[in-house]
C-alpha cells in the first residue's frame, strides 16, 4: 500500500492547478470567447481585470471580441510557432514537425483542426503534461512525476517560451481590445513564472542550455530590396513580427497607398511607393521606431523575467542587428540624396 505524503499532495494540487490555467489559456486562444468561459471569468476574476459590463453591453462586447479574434489570429498575427522560429516564414514547416515529434514521443494527440504548433495546442499540451504529472503525484510516483515536469520545462524552453515573447509583443502592438492585450501579457507572465518554478532544482547550466546562434545583420551577400524585405518580414532574422496591419498603419501615417497581397508584397510596395514620393528615409525611420519599441519592451520583460533571459537574448541581438542594418540603410539614403 502506497502511503501518500503531504508533499505529494501539495505537488499534485500544484500540478492540477497549473493544468487548469494552461487549459483555460488554451481555450481562450483556440476560439473566440464564448459565453460559458465568460461566465467562468465573471465568477473568477483574475485573468482579466475588466469591470464587467451590463448584460446588454456584454453582447456587443462579445461581438467585438469575436471580430478582434479574427482580426488578430486569422488575419494578422498567426499564432503558429513555425512563423517565428523558422527561416521559411510559412505554416507547417519543419518547426511544426519538431513540435509534432515532441507530442508523438509522449503519445499526445492533437485532436484540433490546426497545426501542432498553434499556441492553443501547445498550451493544451502543457495542460496535459501537468495533469498527468498530478496523476503521478497522487499515486506518489515521484520519479514519473519528476520526469514529466522535466519534459514540461524542456518543452517551454525549446518551444513555447521561445516564441511566445515575440508573438505576445506583436499582439500587444496590434490589438484594439484590452482583453487580448491583457490575455497575451498574462499568458506570457504565467508561462514565465511556470518556467521559473519548473527550472528550480535544475542547475544553471541546464537552464542556460538554450540554442544560441550567431546573429547576422546582413540579409545576404546580395543587398537587394527583395532581400531586405525578406529579412524584415522574417522574425527569425529581424527579431520582430511585422504584421499586415502595422504596414497598413505605416502607409496611412505617411499618406501612401497601401499595397495588397502577402506581407512581402505589401512591404515591397510600401518601399516602392515611399521611393516614388521620396519618403524612403521617413519609412526607414518609422521602421526603426518599431524596432526600438520592441527593444524597450524586451528590456522591460527581460528584467522582469530573469529566468527567460538565455532564451530571449537571441531576440534582443537580432533586434539590435536589425536596428543597425536599418540605420545603415538610412545613412546610405542620406548620402545618395546629398
Amino acid at each position: 500500500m502506497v502511503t501518500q505524503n503531504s508533499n505529494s499532495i501539495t505537488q499534485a494540487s500544484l500540478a492540477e492547478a497549473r493544468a487548469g490555467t494552461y487549459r483555460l489559456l488554451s481555450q481562450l486562444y483556440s476560439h473566440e470567447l464564448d459565453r460559458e468561459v465568460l461566465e467562468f471569468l465573471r465568477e473568477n476574476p483574475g485573468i482579466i481585470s475588466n469591470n464587467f459590463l451590463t448584460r446588454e453591453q456584454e453582447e456587443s462586447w462579445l461581438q467585438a471580441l469575436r471580430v478582434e479574434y479574427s482580426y488578430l489570429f486569422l488575419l494578422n498575427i498567426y499564432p503558429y510557432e513555425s512563423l517565428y522560429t523558422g527561416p521559411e516564414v510559412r505554416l507547417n514547416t519543419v518547426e511544426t514537425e519538431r513540435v509534432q515529434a515532441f507530442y508523438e514521443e509522449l503519445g499526445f494527440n492533437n485532436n484540433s483542426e490546426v497545426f501542432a504548433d498553434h499556441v492553443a495546442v501547445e498550451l493544451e499540451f502543457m495542460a496535459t503534461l501537468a495533469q498527468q504529472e498530478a496523476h503521478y503525484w497522487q499515486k506518489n510516483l515521484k520519479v514519473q512525476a519528476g520526469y514529466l515536469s522535466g519534459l514540461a520545462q524542456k518543452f517551454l524552453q525549446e518551444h513555447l517560451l521561445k516564441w511566445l515573447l515575440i508573438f505576445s509583443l506583436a499582439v500587444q502592438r496590434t490589438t484594439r481590445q484590452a482583453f487580448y492585450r491583457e490575455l497575451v501579457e498574462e499568458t506570457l507572465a504565467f508561462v514565465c513564472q511556470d518556467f521559473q518554478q519548473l527550472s528550480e532544482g535544475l542547475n544553471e547550466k541546464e537552464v542556460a542550455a538554450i540554442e544560441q546562434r550567431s546573429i547576422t545583420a546582413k540579409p545576404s551577400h546580395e543587398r537587394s530590396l527583395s532581400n531586405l524585405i525578406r529579412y524584415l518580414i522574417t522574425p527569425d532574422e529581424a527579431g520582430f513580427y511585422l504584421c499586415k496591419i502595422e504596414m497598413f498603419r505605416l502607409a496611412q501615417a505617411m499618406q501612401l497607398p497601401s499595397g495588397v497581397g502577402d506581407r512581402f508584397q505589401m512591404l515591397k510596395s510600401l518601399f516602392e511607393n515611399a521611393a516614388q514620393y521620396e519618403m524612403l528615409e521617413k519609412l526607414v525611420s518609422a521602421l526603426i521606431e518599431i524596432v526600438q519599441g520592441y527593444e524597450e519592451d524586451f528590456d522591460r520583460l527581460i528584467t522582469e523575467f530573469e529566468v527567460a533571459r538565455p532564451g530571449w537574448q537571441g531576440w534582443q541581438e537580432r533586434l539590435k542587428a536589425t536596428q543597425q542594418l536599418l540605420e545603415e540603410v538610412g545613412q546610405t539614403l542620406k548620402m545618395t540624396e546629398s
Partner: protein
Amino acid sequence: MSIDAHKRRSFGDFLKLGKAFMASASVEAPPVPVTKPEPTVSPKDRPINLPPQRMPNGELAQFPPSDKWDDWTEYDAKLWPHKVPRRYMLVPTTCFNCESACGLLAYIDKDTMKVRKFEGNPAHPGSRGRNCAKGPATINQVYDPERILYPMKRVGPRGSGKWERTSWDVALEDIAGRIRKALVEDRKTEVMYHVGRPGEDGYMERVLQSWGIDGHNSHTNICSAGGRFGYAAWMGMDRPSPDHANARFILLISAHLESGHYFNPHAQRIMEGKMAGAKIAVMDPRLSNTASMADYWMPTRPGSEAPVLLAIANVLIQENRFNREFVRRWLNWEQYMKEEQPDLPPTFDEFVNLLKKLYADYTPEYAEHESGVSAEMIRQVAREVGRAGTAFSSHNWRAAAAGNLGGWLVPRCLFFLNVLTGSIGTEGGTSANVWNKFVPKPFVEPPKQKVWNELTWPREYPLAHHEMSFLLPHFLKEGRGKLAMYFTRVYNPVWTNPDGFSWIEALKDETQVECHAALTPTWNETSWLADYVLPMGHGSERHDTHSYETHSAQWIAFRQPVLRVAMEKMGRKFKDTREANPGEVWEEDEFWIELSWRIDPDGSLGVRQYFESPYRPGEKITMDEYYRYIFENSVPGLPEAAKAEGLTPLEYMRKYGAFEIKSDIRQPYERLLNAEELEGSTIDELGVIWSKKPRPHSTDITPKPAQPAGPNGTALGVMVEGAAYAGFPTPSGRLEFFSKTLKDWGWPEYSLPTFERSHVDWHSMDHEANEFTLVPTFRLPTLIHTRTGNAKWLNEISHSNPVWLNPADAERMQVTTNDLVKVNTEIGYFVAKIWVTNGIAPGVIACSHHMGRWRLTEQNGTDRWVSGLADLQQSDSNSGTKGHEWKLTQLKGVEPFKSDDPDSERIWWTDAGVHQNLTFPVHPDPVSGAHCWHQKVLLEKAGLNDRYGDVFVDTAKSHQVYKNWLALARPANHPSGLRRPIWMLRPYKPDPSAFKLPETGR
C-alpha cells in the same frame, strides 16, 4: 487600459484561477493518458495479418525474406492509411541507370502482372539492397508514355524527323544484308558498334569477334581514358578498386558520395569507413556533396592536382614516411637505375637519395602557389596519408583526369601515394580492378579478329587507352574511311560528346555513314539522325551479366526481363523477350543472335556456329541456354551454392540475381609461385619469369594486360629478393615507377610520375579580363547523362544547370544569381544563367552535365519530361565556309503535356537547362587520347539579343582546333613496327598479328 496601468498577477493568483477552472463545469476534457496512441483502424480495412518479418537475431528485417519472394504480401503504400494488401512476385534484376549495376527487386503484382515498384535487392553484394534515387525511378522509364514501342524507319531525308513504323523483319533483313556484304567484300572496318554504357560483360566482344571485325567503339575517351591510362602506366591494370570501408584515410579526386564510378556501392563504403573513424580529403575546385562531407576540402585550381599530389609524395619521401620495404620490393627501381642512371651504383639507398632529389622541388609551398590550397593543409594531408600507411584508399576516375591536358598524370601521381604507402591490395588500401572482377567464359569463344580499325585506333595515338571515338566525325571528314553499318547503342554523341554539330554533319552525310541504326529505349538527339530506331528494353526488360570492382570481392550479377521470368515461373512459354516486353520492345542479346543468323543463314561465313545451341546442335541458342552454360560451367562455387538450395545454377541466379564468388581478396601479387608452376621456367634480365608450360584452365575471361608470348613462352611472375612471386602484369613484373613503354613510344619526359601544364592552366588566364576555366563535367546524383530523360521523378528533382560563379567574381562582373551570361569558347558560345555561390573557387566556373536536352518538333524527339523545343539553323560562315555555322535557339522550355500518364499534365518546372557540350571543340590528349573537357572561356554579360539556351558554333573552327591538337601527337614512334604496345590493355583486343603496321611487312 494600458499595459503599464495593469498590475501583474502573481503565480499564486494564476494557480487559484487554474484550480477553479479545473473544478468548473466548463472542463469536459478527461485526463489524457500520456501513452503511445493506438493506430486508428479504418472500417475499410480487410482483416489480414501481416506479421513483421524478423531476422534470425530477432531484429526487424529490412527486406522480405527470400523464401517468400515468389509470393509476398504487403500493404499498398499508396492507399495508406487504408490497409490494402497486395500480392507480389519479387524478381531480381540490375539497374541500368549508371555503371554500378546495383541490384533491384521488381515487385510484380500477381493480379495485374505489372511491375508496381523497384526496390533494392539485398542479395546483391555490391549494393547490398541500398539504391540511389535512380534505381526506383526505373519504374518511370518502364511506364514512360514517350518511350519507343515499335521499330521505326526513316522516310524523309536523314534528320528530317519523318518516320514510319516498320517491322523487326524489315530492319533485320536490311541490316544483316549490309553487314554480310561488308564481310564478304572484306570491308571489316566498315561495320561499327558504338556503345555508350555497355551494361554487360563479354557478350558483345563475342558477337563482334564472331563476325571477324574490329568494330567496337566506346564512349571511354570522353570519360575515363585519362584516369585509366594513369593507372595502366603503373600496373597495366587500368582501374583502381579502393577498399574504402576499411581505410584509415581516403583521398578522392572525384565525387564518390554523389556520383563517380560505382557511386552508390562506393558511397556506402566510404560512409562505413568514415563511421569507423577514417578521414576524407577531397580535391575539387567545386564544393561537391562529397567535398562537403570531407575532413579536408582541397579546392585545387583545375590542372594543379598533380603538383599537390607530388608535394604530398615529397613530404612522405623527405620525412621518411614512406614504406621502404614495399618500395624496395615492388618498384622497378633497378630497371630505372640501370636504364636512366647508368653512372650511379644500382643500390636501393642510392635510389632513395635520387628519389629525394627528384621530388625535392615539389614543396607544399610550391604546390600552394600552383593550386591555391594552403601548404599547411597539404602537409597535414600528407602526414595523414603517411599515418594511414597500408590502409590508404584513393580514387580518381574522371574529374581532373578527364578535364586537363596531361590529366592522366593525376591518377599516375595519385597512385604514387598508394605505392609509397604500400597500400596496394591491402586491407583498407587500393586494389586493381581485375582482382575484384569476374567475367565468366561463355560456351564457345570465337578467335580474336585479325584486322585493325584505324578509324578507332589511328596511328597518331598509339597509347590511346580506348578508341578515339570523339574524333570520328573529323576522321570521316578527312576521308579516313566510311561506315557501311553504324550502330549506336545507349549512346547519344550529338548531345554528350564535345562538338555535337560536327557529329550532326557527319551523321547526315549518307556517303560517310551509309546506314545508322540506333538501339535505344527512347528518342534522343542522335537517334533523330538514324535510319532505324530499334527499341530496346530497360534494366528490367533484358538479360545481361556483369561484375564490377565495387569492393574487395568478386561477384557477378544477372539482369533479367522480370515479367518474362515471372510469367515463366507461372508456366507460360515465350519464344523471345519481345512477347513479355511492352509493344515490340526487344533485348539486345536476342537481337544479336537473330541478326547473326541472318548475316550467315547457311553457316558458310563461319558466324552462325557461335549462335547455335550447345545443347541442341544446329539450332538457334536461347537465353536460357546461353546463361545456363555460363552458370553451370564458368562461375566457381555457384553450382554448389545452387545445389545446397535444391536449385539449378540458372534457377539460383534467376531467384537471387547475384552471386559472390570470393571476398577479401588481398595482395594477389604477393602469391608465391609453387614448384609445379615454376617447372621448366626461365628468368630474364628484369627478373620476369617465363614459362612454356600451358596455364591451368580458367573460366575468368576478364581482360588483363599481358606481355605477348615470346620464345620462352609467356610471363608467369617475377623474382623478388630471390623468391618467385605472381607480381604485376607489366613488362617489369613490378609497379612501374619508370615506364619504359612511355619512353620507347616517344614520351620520355613522362616516364616518371610528373606533371604537365594543363591547357587551362591558370597562368594562361587573364582573370581580370573575365577569362575563366569552365568545369563542365560534374554529374548529379539524381541523373545519368541523357539516359534518365525519361524518368519523371528524377527530372522533377533536377532540371537546371546554372553556371556556378564565386561571389568575388560576380561582384567584379556586376552579375548576380539568375542573370544571363554568354560563355564564349574557342568555337562559339552558349547563354546560361548564373548561380553565385561560395561553392566554387574564384577564377573557375562550373556547369553540370545532363541538362540542356532539346527536340526539334513539338510532339516527337527527345522526351518531353526533359527537353525544350528548339529551332536549329545551319548557315554559311563569315569566313566563307559552307554551312558551318550552327545556331540552336530554345523556343520554349519544359511544359505540361497530355499523355496516358496524368503526371505529364502536372509538370510544374519549365527550365530545360542549357546544352553546353555543343560549344566545346575536341581536345584529344596526345598521350592517353582522352578528351580534355575543361574549357578556357570568356565570360560576359548576355547582350540584348541573347536568349537563355542559345548556342552558336562554327564547325570550321572546331575542325581547326581538332587539327591543332592532332599536331601535339607524336605518331612517328612505333617501336618494332607495332601499332601499340601489345602488353597493354585494349578493348576487344585483336590477334597479335593485327598489331603489326602493314608497311613494316613483319
